[in-house]
């Protein structure tokens, strides 16, 4: 332990910034605690060296000179570097040596959580144990002897309940200086400060409640070493449990079993799962959000352009500025923003499903089907998230332990139609399919709904078929088994749900305000000027016109060999929303209806569903696959499949007499 001491005194000479890392099992409340500790002072960045997302935040303190840089590591069960997440955590803790590790232990499940704690101990990592969910422990009637636990681990142990007092109201009350139960967060932070800056605290001496220090080496201390087997670790844990824990009734686990009697019931499980999925999509893409979408579209198409025009005219602005603002920026950004309600609802539901614990049940129910195509139920989560956005979805594949399962999931996830593609379908369906009906089994369906669903279904089918193909050929499984915890059901914290949602939605709005904004200007410039930067009358002679005419023949066999469609697909590589922005800018309503037919519209939708994902998703794929070879393979595969599928749709549709 003398190493720790010297390291701490060394770094205190350098600066007063301390590196704190949060580790813990999945579902131990780590992210909630991170949010509590850092408040709004967080940012997401990239790991130096390893290219994986890390979250860093600064803990705001009363003592201004102390800066705690807090890193939220992925949830892990073991420090043994086997899966990607474990490797990240291992590298950070063992090789990066943070000043202090805060180990979040779910006190309602001490046994398994202490395994990681003992591993940290065996690596001599300076650790403070945050014993979380103490409120639930009290409710269950469990009794934990915190002082004894601390003595046996020879680590400071601070009981907390990260969720309690984290509510919106409590936060406001606290801002107002009211004394609100903070769930022990204050104790934890002062203990952290004491550990990193207090004198001689590196040895992890135990402080008893009267303030005096015990002997550094407690006679109770359990002994583990780096090469202790899991059996040895658990036998030490059994000793600790015997000494420190008096069990009551685990109400949480009992309640979860009761809920699961219905939710994962043999007969009801699958119908309920399908009903939940249906509800998620119905609400996200249904009438309520469409109404908001129409309202935003109305603003972007009429209200705002009129206001802008009268305002700019009153300023004597030249014609081209009005065109740039209205036809470029307002049309482009508006087309994307009109899609905000769908993004909001979809991410709200995904967050709720995840935080309540249902997502793991969905994987439990679906595993059998995923096994058929060579994947595991764990692939379900990234694929479901793929309907929202491919970027977090591709990252979510990290929970898969089998390297080949992970690669396969990353490559097929972009086939799940991401939210940004929705406005493309909405545009085509609105123009070509909304006014007709399809007769099936004597019922009449709006063909718009059927077309929309067929696109989503096609994405799923292509993903499944691709998984089957890869798992049978180049990415055969290495037999890593499917082991997944079914966490107890919990009511998600309001604040943490909102924070999670805000992160996603604000990301979308920021994209609309930055990338799409810039893209809209660029698109407008490229369609208004030619290569000599002279304004053109007919946009077919513009930069886009020339480039578009050049690549359009590639799409001729698919039925949409028009330069404007070709350019739209090109801009779609930057961001999928840009396809719609480009079309809004390049086509007039009459041109659009004259050029596309229902059949070519459908072929175009199929192509945009399947072809290479946007730049952001590409970056995420490169990062997660950690190989250019595989990334390029994925892009070629996706685009090849898109071309083939659109070709078949167009040709076969033609033969069947569709137009």
């Amino acid at each position, binding site marked *: 332990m003398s190493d720790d001491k010297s390291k701490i005194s060394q770094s205190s000479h350098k600066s007063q910034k301390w590196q704190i890392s949060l580790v813990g099992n999945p579902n131990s409340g780590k992210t909630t605690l991170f949010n509590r500790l850092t408040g709004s002072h967080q940012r997401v960045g990239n790991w130096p060296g390893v290219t994986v997302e890390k979250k860093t935040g600064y803990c705001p303190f009363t003592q201004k000179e102390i800066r705690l840089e807090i890193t939220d590591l992925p949830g892990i*069960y*073991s420090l*043994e570097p*086997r899966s990607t997440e474990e490797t990240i955590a291992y590298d950070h803790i063992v090789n990066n040596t943070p000043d202090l590790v805060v180990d979040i232990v779910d006190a*309602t*499940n*001490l*046994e*398994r959580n202490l*395994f990681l704690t003992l591993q940290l101990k065996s690596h001599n990592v300076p650790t403070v144990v945050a014993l979380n969910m103490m409120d639930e422990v009290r409710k269950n009637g469990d009794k934990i002897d915190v002082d004894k636990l601390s003595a046996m681990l020879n680590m400071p142990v601070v009981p907390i309940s990260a969720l309690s007092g984290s509510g919106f109201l409590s936060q406001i009350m606290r801002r107002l200086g009211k004394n609100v139960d903070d769930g022990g967060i204050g104790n934890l932070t002062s203990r952290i400060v004491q550990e990193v800056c207090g004198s001689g605290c590196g040895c992890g001496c135990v402080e008893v409640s009267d303030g005096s220090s015990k002997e550094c080496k407690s006679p109770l201390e359990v002994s583990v070493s780096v090469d202790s*087997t*899991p*059996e040895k670790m*658990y*036998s030490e844990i059994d000793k600790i449990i015997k000494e420190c824990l008096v069990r009551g009734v*685990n109400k949480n*686990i009992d309640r*979860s*079993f009761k809920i*699961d009697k219905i939710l*994962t*019931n*043999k*007969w009801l*499980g*699958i119908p309920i799962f399908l009903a939940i999925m249906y509800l998620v999509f119905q609400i996200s893409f249904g009438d309520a959000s469409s109404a908001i979408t129409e309202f935003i579209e109305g603003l972007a198409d009429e209200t705002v352009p009129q206001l802008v025009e009268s305002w700019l005219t009153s300023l004597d602005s030249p014609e081209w500025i009005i065109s740039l603002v209205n036809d470029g920026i307002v049309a482009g950004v508006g087309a994307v923003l009109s899609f905000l309600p769908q993004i909001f609802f979809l991410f709200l539901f995904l967050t709720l499903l995840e935080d309540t614990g249902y997502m793991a049940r969905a994987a*439990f*129910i679906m*595993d*059998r*089907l995923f*096994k058929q195509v060579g994947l595991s*139920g764990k692939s379900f989560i990234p694929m479901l998230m793929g309907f929202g956005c491919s970027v977090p979805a591709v990252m979510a594949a990290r929970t898969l*332990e089998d390297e080949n399962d992970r690669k396969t999931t990353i490559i097929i996830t972009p086939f799940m139609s991401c939210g940004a593609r929705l406005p493309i379908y909405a545009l085509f369906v609105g123009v070509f399919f909304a006014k007709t009906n399809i007769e099936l089994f004597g019922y009449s369906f709006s063909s718009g709904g059927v077309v929309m669903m067929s696109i989503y279904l096609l994405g799923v089918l292509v993903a499944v078929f691709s998984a089957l193909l890869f798992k049978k050929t180049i990415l055969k499984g290495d*037999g*890593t*088994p*499917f*082991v*997944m*915890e*079914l*966490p*107890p059901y919990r009511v998600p914290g309001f604040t943490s749900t909102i924070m999670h949602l805000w992160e996603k939605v604000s990301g979308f709005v920021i994209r609309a305000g930055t990338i799409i904004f810039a893209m809209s200007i660029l698109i407008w410039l490229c369609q208004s000027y030619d290569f000599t930067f002279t304004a053109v009358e007919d946009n077919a002679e513009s930069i886009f016109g020339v480039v578009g005419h050049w690549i359009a023949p590639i799409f001729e066999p698919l039925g949409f060999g028009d330069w404007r469609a070709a350019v739209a697909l090109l801009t779609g590589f930057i961001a999928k929303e840009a396809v719609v922005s480009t079309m809004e800018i390049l086509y007039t309503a009459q041109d659009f209806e004259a050029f596309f037919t229902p059949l070519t519209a459908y072929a175009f939708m199929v192509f945009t569903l399947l072809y290479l994902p946007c730049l952001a998703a590409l970056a995420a794929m490169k990062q997660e696959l950690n190989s250019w070879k595989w990334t390029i393979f994925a892009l070629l595969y996706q685009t090849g499949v898109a071309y083939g599928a659109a070709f078949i749709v167009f040709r076969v549709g033609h033969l069947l007499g569709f137009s």
Partner: protein
Amino acid sequence: MKKTVTDLKVGESGKIQKVTGNSGYVRRLSEMGFTPGTVVTLKKKAPLGDPLELEIREYVLTIRKSSASLIFIE
């Protein structure tokens, strides 16, 4: 014939004797608490018959039948 977890009926428990299979799998399960002498309970089967829901060391997890058949119980 030795008994494995797959031989348990829903609601039944057994004491783990030995976990077999490839080393990575044995290690993973022992880290999750599947050590000799530990009691494991089969709580339920998924609606499609596979995977299984097990309770061990005060928590719940799921593994496939094929994996469960490698966990021998007394």
